[in-house]
């Protein structure tokens, strides 16, 4: 089964080369999809191995696929598939000269994330995480506008600095391992409970590493790069970054947490992660209240969900399966939403919420999946985020962290209300009230967006499109097109809807993966 460890690294790399060299646009554009399929396929292979109690290793144990790694690899592949496949409809406005590098970088990005989750060596894991920054830097700056350049600069500076802090932490952990006689960065070795590691060093190293990786995970106060980068990157890239890159960073935090918990007990990181998680929820809540840009809205929602996952990680063992399920649910949902947001941005020409109105009437083809995905995102059943949140909250009270979870619930409510308000603002309304799509974004001042006067019709009376005032710029014929492939989005939403109800093998896999981290004795 060890070959399955090679696939997610080698095939995307090869495909990246291919898309750089190939002259066929079709081949080039399909290569990221193929990379995702490769990652997903090997992920599923490794999952089956993990379920059969095998732990494939490679390169002298440098790469290792336990249940957790296999699961994360599958998530990377699945979210990658949704983002890249769903992004196929995305029209690149960039000169063809750069198109090859775009597709190649996505493949490299996927390979880097795969490496990050497969590496048993935390140093290698760090290098892979840093490599994701490098791969995505140009993807964020892909549009080559001043804004995307700004986002890319912030992303690289803040991201690299953050990850550098993580490196400092890893260095300290390494230093601690020297004290035991055999210097190692192998997670497997370090997480053994009986290793005489120096507690002070591990404490500092763990704290710094978590702080560093928290930057990539988008946890406040290290989150500042995230809204800019996610809102400026092309939609599929945003989907990948938000859906899995954050999760991969969280994965790194979870691995580090296992090491520190074994040495200094769970309390220290528990406080740190709780503070980070709650702060993230707070930041997300505060900035969603008056949010004006729907891609930034999604970005802040990612911060919120990462905050919730961090709270789950803080709770520890009992909440870990819920956190892991959360990773999958959030990844798929957020990828779907980012893909959709890209399409809305493309057809409406503006990322301003005020400028996008009455979507449900004008463009049901986009609004309906958007609404379903939003329902999944804000935690309605049957979508799995519901189960994850409930699981985390119940576990939180059981673990005696009722206060933390209680504060989280208050913030979640604010976020819920804000997200609902913004979504309703985008989707509901009569078409006549919508701002014409042709208006340049800069011209649509938030307060000046026409709200129009719709004749008040009482309940029960018929409301037809003809009731609304016709607007010269808006076609009254609803646009039912999905503006891109629909199947990946349907698959993603269907998966999140049913996955929580599959006890076998998903339940077993989650349990095993949590066991890897010391959860569920």
């Amino acid at each position, binding site marked *: 089964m060890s070959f399955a460890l090679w696939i997610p690294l080698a095939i995307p790399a090869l495909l990246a080369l291919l898309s750089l060299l190939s002259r066929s646009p079709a081949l080039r554009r399909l290569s990221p999809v193929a990379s995702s399929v490769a990652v997903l396929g090997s992920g599923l292979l490794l999952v089956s191995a993990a379920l059969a109690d095998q732990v494939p290793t490679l390169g002298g144990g440098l790469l290792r696929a336990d249940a957790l790694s296999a699961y994360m690899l599958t998530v990377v592949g699945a979210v990658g598939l949704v983002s890249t496949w769903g992004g196929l409809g995305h029209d690149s406005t960039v000169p063809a000269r750069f198109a090859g590098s775009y597709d190649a970088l996505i493949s490299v990005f996927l390979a880097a994330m795969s490496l990050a989750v497969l590496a048993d060596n935390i140093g290698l894991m760090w290098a892979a995480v840093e490599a994701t920054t490098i791969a995505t830097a140009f993807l964020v700056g892909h549009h080559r506008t001043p804004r995307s350049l700004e986002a890319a600069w912030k992303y690289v500076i803040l991201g690299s600095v953050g990850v550098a802090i993580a490196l400092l932490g890893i260095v300290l952990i390494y230093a601690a391992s020297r004290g035991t006689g055999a210097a190692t960065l192998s997670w497997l070795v370090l997480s053994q409970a009986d290793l005489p590691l120096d507690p002070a060093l591990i404490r500092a190293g763990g704290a710094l590493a978590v702080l560093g990786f928290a930057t990539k995970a988008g946890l406040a106060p290290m989150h500042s790069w995230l809204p800019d980068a996610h809102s400026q990157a092309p939609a599929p890239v945003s989907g990948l970054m938000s859906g899995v890159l954050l999760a991969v960073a969280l994965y790194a935090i979870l691995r580090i947490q296992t090491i520190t918990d074994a040495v200094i007990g769970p309390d220290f990181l528990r406080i740190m992660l709780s503070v980070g998680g709650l702060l993230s929820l707070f930041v997300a809540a505060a900035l969603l209240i008056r949010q004006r840009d729907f891609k930034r809205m999604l970005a802040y929602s990612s911060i919120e969900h990462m905050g919730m996952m961090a709270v789950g990680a803080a709770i520890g063992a009992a909440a870990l399966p819920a956190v892991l399920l959360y990773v999958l649910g959030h990844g798929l949902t957020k990828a779907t939403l980012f893909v959709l947001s890209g399409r809305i941005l493309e057809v409406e020409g503006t990322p301003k919420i005020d400028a996008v109105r009455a979507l449900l009437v004008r463009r049901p083809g986009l609004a309906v999946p958007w609404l379903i995905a939003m329902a999944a995102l804000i935690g309605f059943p049957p979508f799995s985020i519901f189960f994850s949140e409930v699981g985390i909250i119940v576990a939180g009270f059981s673990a005696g962290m009722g206060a933390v979870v209680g504060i989280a619930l208050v913030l979640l*409510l604010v976020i*819920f209300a804000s997200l609902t308000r913004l979504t309703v603002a985008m989707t509901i309304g009569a078409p006549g009230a919508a701002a014409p799509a042709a208006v340049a974004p800069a011209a649509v001042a938030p307060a000046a967006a026409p709200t129009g006067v719709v004749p008040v019709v009482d309940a029960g009376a018929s409301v037809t499109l003809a009731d609304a005032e016709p607007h010269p710029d808006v076609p009254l014929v609803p646009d039912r097109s999905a503006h891109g492939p629909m199947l990946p989005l349907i698959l993603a939403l269907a998966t999140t809807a049913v996955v929580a109800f599959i006890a076998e093998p998903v339940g077993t896999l989650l349990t095993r993966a949590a066991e890897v981290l010391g959860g569920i004795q």
Partner: protein
Amino acid sequence: MTALEAGMLGQTLLLVLAVAAALLTPTPWRSRVSGTFCTLLAAAGIVTGALALSGGTGSLSIPTALPLDPLVLSPDRLGGLVMVVVSSVGVLASLFGIGSARVASASRTAWLSMAVFLCGMQLVPAATDVVTFLLFWEIMTLGSTALLLAHHATRGTVASALVWYSAMSQLSFFFVLAGFAMLAGQAGGTGFADLATIDPYSWQASVAFLLLLLGFGGKAELVPLHVWVPRVLPEAPGHVAAAMSGAMVNIGVYGALLVLVRLLPNGPAWWGVLIMVVGGVSALYGILQASVASNLKVLLAYSTTENMGLVFLGLGASVLLRADNATAAADAALVAALLLMLSHAAFKSTLFLGAGAVARAAGEMNLDRLGGLGSRMPWTAAAFGAAAMGAAALPVTSGFVAEWMLLQSLIHGSRVDGEVVSVTASVAMPLAVAVIALTAGLALLTFVKAYGIAFLARPRSPEAKLAVEVPVIMRIPLVLGALLVVGLGLLPGPLAVAVGGAVGPEFTPDVRTIGLAGVDARGIDAVLDPTTFVVLAGLLLVPVLIALFVSARRHPTRTSPLPWAGGGSRLRPRMQYTATSYAEPLVRVFDDVLRPSRDVEVTHVGESRYLVERVHVEQTVSDVVETRLYRPVLNLMQRAGILARRAQNGSIHRYLSYSFVALLLVLIVVSL
């Protein structure tokens, strides 16, 4: 597989069919096909609930990927009772929807969500553990939200109603979630059986109780969590409003019952006092707002708050009396609360369906523009009238019996064998009686106004004049509902026995049937047989009728287009009393609570200051709770939201400083 399991499976199957029907049927047929499936789904709920109520057993387990305690659906008697109630309303609403749904309310989304909504509601009472409960609770919320969304899709003006609804629903959900999680954390398991082992006198139980009361109270539209009701229900079509206000609120009551009967029975006295306060305030506030409302649906919506307030008042009294060892009265109060819930479901759904019929016929919900519908829509008028009697708790409707039982339990509660049980009870009970009495009085006014202004006298607008009776398919649920209102009122005995059995085995109220179908609550010496009552009234009617007929034969009635009419000759419909003017004396009396804003605009003729051309008076009564409690909080949040933008002002230096400070803090903390 037991019959109960088959019933639950049947519901899920019918849900799938209903969803498929909603998605696949072409528009002209959709309402009929989907509505039929929804009706069947609800009917399956009635059957399942009845099976559970009669002691049937069976369980369905739901697989889950998370290592939670097993998710099991297995309704007990209480759950069965609630399931029957909710599903019955579902049947009425679905039947009505077949006829009434048009355009937006007949869209795919609308019917699909209706099925999801109904199924969610019907299965909440079947849950036997926290997660299943929350799962179906949220499915119910999702269904209702989507249902409203489907109706509001094209109407930007009502978007805020949707936001209010979903935010308030989520608030309730979070309260319930936190409360249950608190209990589960204490009990070490999420099954209701585990939760029932908790000592109700522990502080955790009290915190959980407060959270759950807020959560379930929110669903039951209690003050101060009712603010969504007057926004949402008026905008929803009749059958949706009926399902929400007639059925969904009962889930809130069920939650409270679950806590007070199953999970934490025999709680401390202050729980009871608190519930009574919340219930009493809700009842008074709800009925006050209802009595001054001019929009028929707003009136009905606020009346729900009132009725649920009374239900909770009964529940609270039951807890308080039980803590004071007045067991018989406590049991009676519990039975009364359940009877109130039953009767409310019957009359409120009928009223909302009636309002839907009026909306369809007259296109108008403003009472000030209705009138004279009684002769134009006799079926609707009769059904609405019967249900209004129920809402006003007049004999011999179900509402009357329930309120009678509640009052009986209250006045017998504070003394056991001539001894005062506690000072708390002896203060609380009289106040509760006063609150109920005032509520009942105001309810009387409210429903006299609603029925009298809408259905009697003369039309106040051309639309009302042109109104015609609704089609047969919509009359059926109306009549069924009205029959339920009266029927439940005539059969309090068997009903009380069934309800009393449902709260067992924890509690065993000593109620039995007496006479034909009368109720005899032995513990509190209260007997009532509505049938005998009706017979007596009938007997008294005989001589009156004889006199009437004798007189009528000799002196037949004359009709005159211009009767005395106060001596005037230009009697126009506009000169009639309107709903607003009807409530005017009341508004004055309760000026301090309602704080109406009046706007009088006088247009003078030409230059003269003395001759008036027209006077425009506008009076609006806003929801005080909303303007005084929610507005400030929301404004504060908006301001905070604007302020928070500064944190993300685009300066990379600021962002780097955040990281830098975090790093320094972590360094300092780790070296402490």
